[in-house]
């Protein structure tokens, strides 16, 4: 049945032509909204899928056409107005008007915020050869540098983006070093035991992993200033905006407008110098909330929402990487596809009538192996290998379960898709049971801080 308010909403604006934004637009139509639907996107592209950017798109195994999330036919059916290459600049005090960077104002009865997150960068002058990998344009620029024969590639950050990019660079025949400030990559996500196993993938795959040492700065070739003096480009190793929440992507100059020279090396905090022709910075992403600074929405590492993706204003919902739902902000593909149904339902209902509690799930393809993780691991959980062996990386993989007082909290698989799927379903069913029996418990569990 059509929600009672669906007819009262004449215009809904989705800010963010992203995976989450597109899914929200689909849900709006699927749930009976037949008014004016506007989708605003900062990038000039139709919605595309980001996960392949660090994998098949970089290696050339898949092309841009395969990244498209919708075809012209579906978009015609959606009957939405696409304002692409257009940034939202502000949301007014009542949450009724979205102001665009060209000054236009979109009066809206409902707003879906899906502005995602932007890659953190290193501070310092921009140097050519230094990349982040978040958008299609980022991936195009990086790919263009990787197709001219072997290069010395240094990846800063051994999280999933870093590891996948390193793996793709190895596939392309480059000399790859991965630098990670933490003693063990992914320890916060997988726990020390399993993180230690996964760290072994780098060496097995043919990349060097340098862990437990930070980046002091980037070295670049001399550049000539307008006064004619020569300067050396250096960049300090602190992630820009790391101490600030909701850093606006506008605070750092895009690499393309580089006025410095070309990167030549990465200087580590222990003084070592890693020669580099290409540097990829994979040190996380900050939610894009800068444009909401003057709005009444509560912002704290994302747009604060209740369990149902509803913000402090009932006619404004948030989904995907930018949304902190019930205390948890998960930069997961699956969250971006699962939250919109609930968010739109609540938006059209005018209040929270359903909670979105997807079981966290993510995957990563590295060095020919597929890693999958689902659940909510907590500090102190015990890990048990239930299938295969972590000693034989790449030879059949393994399935590991995390347990807290005998109860399964999460599951990790390496090249064990089938048993993983079964285990993931078991976790989902258990979470639903507990949500039914102990609603408060499930909500508390969901309020644990985000780990990714």
């Amino acid at each position, binding site marked *: 049945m059509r929600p009672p308010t669906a007819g009262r909403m004449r215009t809904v604006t989705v800010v963010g032509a992203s995976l989450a934004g597109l*899914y929200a637009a689909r849900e709006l139509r699927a749930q009976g909204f037949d008014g004016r639907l506007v989708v605003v996107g900062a990038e000039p592209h139709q919605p595309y*899928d980001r*996960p*392949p950017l660090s994998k*098949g798109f970089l290696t050339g195994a898949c092309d841009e056409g395969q990244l498209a*999330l*919708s*075809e012209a036919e*579906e978009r015609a059916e959606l009957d939405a107005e696409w304002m692409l290459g257009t940034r939202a600049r502000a949301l007014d005090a009542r949450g009724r008007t979205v102001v665009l960077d060209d000054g236009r104002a979109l009066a809206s009865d409902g707003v879906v915020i899906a502005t995602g997150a932007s890659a953190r960068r290193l501070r310092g002058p921009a140097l050519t050869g230094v990349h982040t990998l978040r958008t299609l344009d980022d991936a195009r620029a990086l790919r263009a540098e990787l197709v001219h024969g072997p290069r010395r590639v240094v990846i800063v950050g051994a999280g999933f983006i870093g590891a996948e990019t390193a793996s793709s660079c190895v596939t392309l025949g480059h000399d790859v070093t991965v630098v990670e400030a933490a003693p063990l990559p992914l320890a916060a996500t997988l726990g020390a035991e399993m993180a230690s196993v996964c760290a072994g993938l780098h060496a097995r795959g043919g990349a060097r992993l340098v862990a437990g040492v930070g980046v002091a700065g980037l070295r670049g070739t001399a550049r000539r200033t307008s006064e004619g003096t020569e300067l050396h480009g250096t960049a300090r190793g602190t992630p820009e905006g790391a101490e600030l929440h909701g850093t606006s992507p506008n605070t750092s100059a895009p690499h393309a407008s580089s006025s410095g020279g070309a990167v030549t090396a990465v200087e580590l905090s222990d003084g070592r110098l890693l020669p580099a022709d290409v540097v990829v910075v994979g040190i996380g992403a900050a939610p894009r909330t800068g444009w909401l600074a003057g709005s009444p929405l509560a912002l704290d590492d994302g747009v604060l929402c209740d369990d149902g993706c509803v913000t402090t204003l009932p006619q404004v919902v948030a989904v995907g990487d930018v949304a902190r739902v019930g205390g948890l902000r998960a930069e997961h*593909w*699956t969250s971006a*596809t699962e939250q919109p149904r609930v968010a739109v339902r609540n938006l059209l209902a005018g209040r929270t009538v359903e909670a979105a509690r997807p079981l966290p799930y993510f*995957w990563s*393809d590295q060095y020919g192996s*597929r890693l*999958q993780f689902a659940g909510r691991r907590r500090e102190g959980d015990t890990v048990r290998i239930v299938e295969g062996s972590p000693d034989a990386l790449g030879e059949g993989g393994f399935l590991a379960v995390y347990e807290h007082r005998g109860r399964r909290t999460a599951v990790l698989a390496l090249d064990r*898709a*089938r048993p*993983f*799927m*079964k285990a993931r*379903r078991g976790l989902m069913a258990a979470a639903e049971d507990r949500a039914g029996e102990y609603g408060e418990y499930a909500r508390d569990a969901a309020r644990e801080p985000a780990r990714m």
Partner: protein
Amino acid sequence: MIPVCRLEDLPAGESVRLDTTPPVAVFNADGELFAIDDTCSHQDASLSQGWLEGCLVECPLHAASFDLRTGRPTCLPARRPVRTHQVYVEDGVVHVRLATAEEGSAA
């Protein structure tokens, strides 16, 4: 015609992957045999490792679901069908007859 395995080696609820180009997945869905292209039409994942429920198989990577009878996706993120192939049993051995490029597509 490609021999797959003996029928008793593919009990109900099980699946097997053929290393053809492209690879093919053969399923025993509650006694009925089906064969479809193994690679999910959305992204690189093996449907033979998916979750079988009735005549539907759910992709182990992003939970796209396909109807084994038609190859059509029943939900996102897949939007394109996978090809279907003929399966038959001869002398207790499961065989697959691969569809040509034009055949087997429900689209």
